[in-house]
């Protein structure tokens, strides 16, 4: 576990315990999950949870990391916050991170059978060899 003023990173195996504590503790009282998203850092994935306490009006950014780039997996937080249900499906669809314990982990925007997960940095599976988003405006770096 490491922490900066902006965010807290927890071990994947501690994620559900930490989330349950943050949700239930009366000092923390993070009842509202603002959003779930994930970032691809090439060597690992970072899953980011933005939390909000409505009664106490404070926020927290909770992160966890998945190092297995081939088949990343973290625990699902649907049991703690129902709001993670659709958003974890979205992260699975576009970033390919599996959420263990999610009740209905299917693709949400793309169709079943779509090759790969497009938001990964190494995804270049466009038909015709197009590189999405990189064609018309060549990167300077």
């Amino acid at each position, binding site marked *: 576990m490491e922490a900066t003023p902006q965010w807290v990173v927890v071990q994947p195996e501690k994620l559900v315990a930490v989330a349950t504590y943050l949700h239930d503790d009366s000092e923390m009282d993070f009842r509202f999950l603002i959003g779930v998203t994930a970032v691809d850092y090439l060597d690992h994935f970072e899953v980011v949870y933005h939390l909000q306490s409505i009664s106490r009006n404070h926020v927290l950014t909770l992160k966890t990391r998945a190092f297995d780039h081939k088949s990343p997996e973290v625990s699902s937080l649907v049991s703690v916050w129902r709001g993670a249900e659709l958003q974890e499906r979205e992260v699975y669809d576009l970033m390919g991170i599996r959420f263990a314990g999610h009740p209905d982990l299917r693709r949400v925007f793309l169709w079943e059978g779509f090759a790969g997960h*497009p938001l990964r940095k190494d995804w270049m599976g466009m038909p015709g060899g197009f590189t999405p988003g990189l*064609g018309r*405006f060549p990167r300077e770096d």
Partner: protein
Amino acid sequence: MTMKSEPFVVNVGPQHPSTHGVFRLRFTLDGERIVDAEMIMGYLHRSMEKLAEGRTYIQNIPFTDRLDYLSAMSNNLAYCMAVEKLMGIEVPERGQFLRVIMAEFQRIANHAMAIGSFAMECGVWFTPMMWMFRDREKILDLFEMTCGARLTTNYVRIGGVSFDIPPEFMPAATALVKELPERIAEYESLLLENEIIVVRSRDVGVLPPELAIAASTSGPVLRGSGVMWDIRKADPYAAYDRLDFDIPVGTRGDCYDRFIVRMEELRQSVRILEQALAMLPEGPASVEVPLALRPPVGEAYARIEAPKGELGFYLVSDGSPHPQRFHIRSPSFINLTPLRDMVLGLTIPDAIVTLGSIDIVLGEVDR
């Protein structure tokens, strides 16, 4: 005697006027009652988050217009706030007030559409919609006067706004703000006690406050359930901390409550506009920022109270002119999370009213 019945599947959409776009619902019915509902979306998925990674920070502003295409100003504002947070840019006072003015006009335009189409779904056929279009038209004229565009405005920019308002804006805006309370009173007399709306939406699609919070809903859906939560008060941005307004909340969490919350928000927006137009300070509207922005390595999450709920942008910068990650926390998408719980046990016409009361725009659901 009990009747034996078999589950029966009814497909609604994706091409259906009641789904507000290309959204598909698969209902399983037992008799007339819904026993299961499945949402199928993605028909308007344009991969904005991926496309944005290949473009510069400024090139990404027009994308945000196409998210919730009924409230482009709010989307521009949320995105630009995220970039400003990443870069540490301070927007001048006049720019902040112009942002508030545009965002509140946009909220009125959006709620006009939401209320109009909600009334249509309840069965109050077309007159409210046309009345709402009349006022929305005047707001869109103001936008056109300011930035040349009516829907995809691309007006709020990083560091301020694209143009200061033209001289004819203030008289037109003041006249409109004077006229609006009268119009809203007309709508209230037409719709609030309207028997068709009350009968069709009272105690239909009830969302209890505990579920509303747990399922991460926001905006009028959360407030309709009686939770007093508004980002403009809880985490003030732009100039909202200097303006005086109330947060309307519902009591029962049904479709009717979400509808009257939107009605009351029209009044509150007019209140904000009256103050903001009177307080609009002189001075520059924006600061100069370089075209090739290179934010420092880091991340930022900025959020606003968009007409549909909490709209947030999560940006991760790796120091290059392109965002490493561009994530949109879209209210329409997340507000759909409890839809299944809300429609179970209802009939299909009631489920359509429930979906209408959530007020989704598919550009934002699918992104």
